[in-house]
């Protein structure tokens, strides 16, 4: 191991005179407490390192010891259901009230191991070494590290072993041999290799109507959630962590609040995974680097997280990586960069901000794994733009990388209209690819009028146009007054409001409405579209706008989300019937002009 001695230190950045070779991005340990750091620059015999823990007390002369490895983490069966810091050191122990610097990696844990390889077989990187049952009782695969391959010389019989104990030896073609344990090491800044990238034709089902039906994200896709403070980024991400259709959730609290982490830790063990009925915590890995924890570790945390996500992807699982908030990561990058004297660019961020954002989101994908199965990492990142202004660097660079953009709106949030996603500023480039998936959902519903292959896209377009028109008409009403609008336009405003209230609004705190499955979404969309159609027809035959607006059916339509549970299919048929008969009962008002 090479050693260096500190020659200058300020905050989390130090310079040290090296006595031996160091590598860029190598992990180092500083001082007697072994504080974790990383080499970020090498210049002659001087290295610059960032330290991931509180540097109080360090001084010139203190030793910096190289680890010989790039900054990395250990991936294995001990991840699910637990909480870690930004460098994947477990945070589990509630008896220590404070985060003390100099935390050691944890002692290896033991697991029941069943081998899946036999001596004499040829094992490739990513193939399944064996299976374990983790502490929560979930079955998981242990993988041969992606960079290892060879003939299996030895492999242990089934039994209980520590996760770092070599259980097998591989001999590569060049004759070298390598010991393989249940866990293996991987550098966080290096994407794990895959066999092939796959196009995605399947959504990550979020259970949020406005997302799945209007602005979906594909499995392996990437979405950004920008929004000012209090607009609902965290609540939305938490709602997705609770109910989205992924097998594994990696949730990163990156520079956010301690109480939010405490909330997740309090709630998730008690909630059931909607798909398996098991405690939600069992499919979750939490990485917490709260705003008051050392800032350099915040920079590293999203890389640790995406590496963990890729590790589960490599087991053939669908993984959702939720990052709250990527702005805090970017700020950490800025803080460290300024400390070692790089020239700031736009907004004070280093000039490589945009390439770092691109590299990060590029790790989202649906793939064929090295072992030949299909896995995915879907990345959903929140953005906290200063003053809620989306033209700032982090938002604008991210916007170029992601395919789904869910813009949160302060006005909506202030009237407690949640999720406060602005339908006019948001978009999804994945929607066309997901059409056939939705077609199957609609095909499973009882037919409603002539079957149309692209019913979902048509309804989606209908709703989006309506919302667009609403914005236009409201601008007009501000000039001429609402009462001066013709009845047809008043009806458009009315229907748009109905779509907002009855479809887009969905409280994350409502038991019935926290999750809305694709079938229920489709039924709700159809019900509203039916109302709009019949209302337009009624108006055309001379029924007054006021009579339509006063219909009793309006209230149940507005409250479908709250009042009709997931399994209550009959309620929608009843609603349609009631709607038809109410419309049939409307008579043209004598005074009303017929609108063509």
């Amino acid at each position, binding site marked *: 191991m090479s050693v260096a001695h500190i*020659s*200058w*230190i*300020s*905050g989390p950045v130090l310079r040290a005179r090296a006595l031996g070779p160091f590598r860029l991005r190598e992990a180092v340990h500083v001082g007697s407490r072994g504080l974790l750091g990383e080499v970020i620059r090498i210049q002659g015999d001087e290295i610059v390192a960032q330290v991931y823990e*509180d*540097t*109080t*007390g*360090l*001084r*010139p002369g203190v030793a910096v010891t190289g680890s010989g490895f790039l900054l990395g983490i250990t991936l294995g069966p001990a991840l699910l259901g637990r*909480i870690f810091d930004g460098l994947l050191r477990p*945070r*589990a*122990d*509630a008896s*220590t*009230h*404070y*985060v003390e610097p100099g935390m050691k990696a944890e002692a290896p844990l033991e697991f029941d191991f069943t081998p899946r390889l036999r001596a004499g077989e040829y094992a490739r990187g990513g193939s399944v070494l064996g299976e374990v049952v983790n502490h929560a009782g979930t079955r998981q695969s242990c993988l041969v590290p992606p960079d290892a391959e060879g003939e299996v010389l030895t492999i242990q019989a089934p039994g209980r072993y520590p996760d770092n104990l070599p259980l097998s030896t591989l001999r590569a073609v060049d004759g070298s041999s390598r010991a393989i344990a249940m866990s293996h090491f991987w550098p966080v800044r290096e994407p794990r290799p895959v066999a092939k990238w796959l196009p995605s034709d399947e959504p990550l089902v979020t259970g949020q109507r406005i997302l799945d039906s209007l602005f979906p994200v594909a499995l392996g896709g990437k979405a950004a959630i920008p929004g*000012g*403070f209090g607009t609902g980024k965290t609540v939305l991400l938490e709602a997705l962590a609770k109910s989205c259709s992924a097998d594994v959730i990696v949730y990163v609290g990156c*520079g956010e*609040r*301690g*109480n939010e*982490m*405490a*909330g997740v*830790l*309090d709630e998730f063990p008690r909630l059931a995974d909607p798909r398996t009925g098991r405690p939600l915590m069992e499919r979750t890995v939490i990485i917490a680097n*709260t*705003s*008051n*924890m050392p*800032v350099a570790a915040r920079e590293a945390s999203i890389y640790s997280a995406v590496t963990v996500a890729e590790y589960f992807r490599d087991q053939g699982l669908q993984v959702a990586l939720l990052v709250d908030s990527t702005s*805090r990561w970017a700020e950490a990058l800025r*803080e460290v960069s*300024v400390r070692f004297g790089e020239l*700031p660019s736009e907004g004070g961020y280093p000039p490589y901000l945009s390439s770092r954002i691109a590299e990060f989101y590029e790790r989202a994908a649906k793939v064929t794994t090295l072992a030949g199965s299909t896995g995915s990492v879907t990345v959903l990142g929140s953005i*906290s733009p*200063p*003053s809620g202004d989306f033209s700032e660097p982090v938002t604008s660079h991210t916007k170029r990388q992601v395919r789904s953009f869910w813009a949160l709106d302060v006005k909506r949030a*202030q*009237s*407690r209209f949640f999720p406060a996603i602005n339908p006019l500023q948001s978009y999804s480039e994945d929607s066309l690819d997901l059409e056939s998936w939705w077609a199957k959902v609609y095909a499973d519903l009882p037919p409603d009028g002539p079957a149309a292959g692209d019913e979902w896209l048509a309804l989606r377009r209908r709703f989006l146009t309506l919302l667009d028109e609403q914005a236009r008409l409201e601008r007009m*009403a*501000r*000039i*001429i*007054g*609402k*009462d001066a609008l013709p009845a047809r336009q008043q009806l458009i405003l009315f229907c748009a409001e109905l779509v907002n*209230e009855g479809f887009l609004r969905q409280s994350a*705190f409502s038991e019935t409405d926290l999750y809305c499955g694709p079938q229920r979404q489709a039924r709700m969309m159809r019900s509203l579209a039916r109302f709009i159609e019949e209302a337009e027809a009624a108006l055309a035959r001379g029924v007054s706008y006021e009579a339509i607006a006063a219909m009793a059916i309006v*209230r149940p339509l*507005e*409250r479908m989300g*709250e009042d009709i549970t997931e399994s209550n299919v009959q309620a929608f048929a009843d609603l349609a019937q009631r709607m038809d008969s109410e419309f049939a009962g409307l008579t043209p008002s004598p005074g009303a002009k017929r609108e063509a």
Partner: protein
Amino acid sequence: MRPSLLVSGAASRIDGPLLFLRRTLNVGLNHAVSVHGGDGRTRLGRIAAIDEEFLTVELLESGAGLALADTVVRFHLEPLHFGLSTGILGRVFDGVGRVIDGGPPIPIHRSFQIDGLPLNPVARARPHDFIETGISAVDLMNSLVRGQKLPIFSGGGLPHDRLAVQIANHARLRGAESQDFAIVFAGIGVPHASADYFRRSFEASGVLERAALFLNLASDSSTQRLLTPRFALTAAEYLAFVEGKHVLVILTDMTNYCEALREVSGAKGDVPGRKGFPGYLYSDLATLYERAGCLHGLAGTLTQLSILTMPSDDIGHPIPDLTGYITEGQIVLSRELDRAGIYPPISVLPSLSRLMKDGIGRGSTDTDHPALASQLYAAYAKATQARVLASVVGEEGLLEIDRKYLAFGAGFEQELVSQTSARTLEASMEIGWRLLRALPKVELSRLSDAQIAQYIEAQR
């Protein structure tokens, strides 16, 4: 007291708040120093950077009057600490924890680093105890819970002090006797009159002997302002997590704190960010605001109610903006309401309490509290939209329903937000239901049929 070392004649340069010393001692980063000038004054400082030849000391108090030759530096060999005991209650300190009320020194039970360590998120218990403040716009619409950090976003000349005092004096768990509570007050760059207002109000309500006051007045050193909230929060953490008290911390005015930070960082030559504030303002504020909460297995709690005045009443200004990104909501005061004679002039729409959902509803306040608050929000938002429309096209250009909303908005402000004496939550809720009764049923989509039947139709 830990040993310390005196060094003289090492100073080589003074540049704003930075003092450069030749490195004659092997001391560590962030360790505290006391800098004694030839003028007889002592300033606190901390070691901000070290290389092999020089130490950079960041002075935390004004450097005026220092000279190179006669400056003597005492190295404390550890970060700044504050010695504490329950003896701090009823006492007044300056901005750096020195007794200024003429009384005896504080007996020291334990001593803590003023920067504090980050709380382990796993050790945090989720805050959920509803605090009744007697203020409808808070209790009903933006409920405060124990362990929350909820700032007041105000503006110059608005009655934020009065509101903070009212909350401090009235705050209690519902139905509970006054419990083991304490108040820690930090005046950061506030005028003497304002500090005095708090002291007199606490005296009048008899809570002064349960309060510790830390005063950095407008006339005191501005760099010292960076320390005042840290001393106060260290005291508060001691009272909460060692002594088991329910502590309410009032930090006022955080805008002065941020301005001091800008001043110091500018003098240090940091790259300025938005409006000249350093890029690390967010992280720096987080190290203060995050020092609130509840811990597993400990009885005490720490609730923060900080006050900040928004420069030019702009909520997008970096100070309120970054604060809002860290705190668990905000109570926003409005000049318009204040001008209209409404007290407390709480602007309900931009206000928010994020922990409200854990403190209200079935089992804690009232089963129908969440729905009522949500419906009032929705209706009041529509009322303000109608108001905007009316101001452009006139009331005649409005639809019948918009006129109903206009009336609702006025009632909401004058009857619910405005109040002359404390209200129970029940009284606040009753006003809320009454206001909603004036709206047609189809507008009340956030209420269930059962709620409409019970609160709206049965009493129409």
